[in-house]
């Protein structure tokens, strides 16, 4: 069996506070994994560590068997990890289509990007994403003028044109209406299989809708792992959530 992402003994120590503590998990190719955990469990920090925003104190991260722990953010991105932030992070002063053109360039070098042309594959990728995210009516608008939901979908779309093998999603439905949440779930479901996805999410309805396997974190450590029924019955998980009112 081939693993897309292997996290092994990952630890980060902020002046004595271990936000992520000896965390280990493996994610299969094409899997959709949800990470749950009460506030302060270390979910976002885990994403920071995988994507290179924060440097780990010890442990390692492997992407398709290749060690990426010590690479810088853009190298990790080039290796195949895409990240979506909780607050939509897009290029607000560029148009929607320009946002996608930036993300679609398979070429990181400055000098090789000194050209106008877009390859046919890039163009095709962009068109697919526009259809998937339903942004065709606003292609020429500034990304900053989009609705909150559209911004989130644009950011998701950029990860797809970027051709990220593993996508990290940090609360993709935060602040969304019911309809928007449903549409987001649809988009994510369509990505299943083609991309390996790691989602941090609080909305249990959403989690039940999309999740296959769930990993629960507590105080930086792995608490439980399994399918949704196992997790909901798990005693340790109930215990951890008691303080914050249980799983909703």
């Amino acid at each position: 069996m081939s693993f897309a992402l292997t996290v092994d003994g990952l630890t980060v120590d902020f002046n004595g506070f271990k936000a992520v503590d000896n965390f280990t998990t493996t994610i299969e190719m094409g899997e959709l994994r949800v990470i749950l955990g009460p506030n302060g469990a270390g979910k976002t920090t885990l994403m920071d560590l995988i994507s290179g925003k924060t440097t780990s104190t010890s442990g390692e991260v492997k992407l398709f068997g290749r060690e990426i722990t010590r690479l810088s953010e853009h190298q990790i991105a080039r290796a195949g990890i895409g990240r979506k932030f909780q607050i939509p992070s897009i290029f607000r002063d560029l148009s929607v289509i320009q946002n996608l053109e930036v993300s679609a360039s398979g070429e990181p070098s400055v000098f090789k990007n000194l050209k106008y042309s877009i390859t046919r594959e890039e163009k095709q990728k962009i068109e697919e994403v526009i259809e998937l995210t339903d942004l065709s009516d606003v292609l020429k608008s500034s990304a900053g003028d989009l609705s909150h939901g559209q911004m989130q979908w644009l950011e998701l779309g950029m990860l797809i044109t970027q051709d990220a093998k593993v996508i990290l999603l940090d609360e993709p439905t935060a602040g969304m209406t019911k309809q928007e949440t449903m549409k987001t779930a649809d988009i994510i479901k369509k990505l299943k299989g083609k991309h390996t996805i790691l989602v941090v999410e609080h909305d249990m309805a959403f989690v039940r809708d999309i999740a296959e396997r769930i990993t629960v974190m507590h105080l930086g450590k792995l608490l439980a792992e399994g399918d949704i029924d196992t997790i909901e019955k798990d005693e340790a998980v109930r215990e951890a959530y008691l303080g914050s009112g249980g799983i909703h």
Partner: protein
Amino acid sequence: MIENRSLAQKLDWAVYITFFVVVLCLPLLTDDVFWLNRISKFLVFGLLGLAIALSWGYAGVLNLGQGLFFGLGAYMFAMSLKLKSGTSLQQGSDKPVPDFMVWNAEPGSPTELCCIVPGSWLWLPFQSQTFGMIMAVALPILVAFVVGSAIFRLRVSGVYVAIITLALVLLVRLLIIDAQPITNGFNGLTDLGWLNLFGVEFDPYMYETYYLVAVSCCVIMLAARWLVSTRAGLILQSTRDDANRSRYLGYDVAAYQIFFFVVSAAIAGFAGMLYVVAAEFASPTFLDISFSISMVVWAAVGGRSSLIGAVIGAVLINSIEASVSETEIFKEAWKLIIGVIFIFVVLLLPRGIAGVARDFARWLEDSYLQSTSKRG
């Protein structure tokens, strides 16, 4: 949705073409060579506005020390032209030595460039005009690369970039003033010779020099325009909006910032060289803070995110300044007005003249589209 913002783009090109036509046809309309010389200097300032727009508008990096690159370019080339000047040939000697070195030399030192004053050997290669020309662009590029690498690799951003570049231009200005024996200190390099290219002498008050400056200016504008419309230019703008997003898309943000910082420096260095050809001097005032901030003013008034807007802003402000500068009191009053205009622009027109023009074009277009859709 159909391409409905085309008028603004067409307007952009129309402005470029009009600008080129006007600039290149100007000598046909006048035989006032002094006036033409003045305009050529303003075109050089236009290039400085362009360099600022490139780094500020497109990269989001406000460089308050652009005068450093302009000054370096100017000094490098002025050194070559100084050695070609008649004032550098003492008593019919055929080995040039700058006059100020002779005045400053210790009694008894040999009247040779190698050793007349300590450090004067640095001038030796500048006997070649080509060397001076190359250095006028190469040195700014080198300095910008080193400084840019330090700033952007360490992820210094925003106001701190402005403060570092500001301190840097002041630092170099002091070094130039302090190296008085080889730079002529506060007085700078004056009484320069003329540029000689392919046998043509560029007298600053002749049409040739105007055309040299005007054509260079147009070519650089087109090149810069091309640069920002490439994928690399688009990625650069993305780093301005959200550097972290660009990083997580796999771009080495610092590399893009350094590249465009260097391009901007190279343009400023080249502008310094052209200025020396037209104005026949180089001075530490090129590295004054007020000059560097003036460049930012030109770009802001013209439109910080429009290359041609910044060029027009620079030419316009300097032309008005020149026309009111005939008397001392009006000159001072003009400075006051510039202060007021600048406050006004920052408060009310943050996108400058270019922004107003674009909004106007969009408004025209929208009302046109509305009227046609009503009819149809």
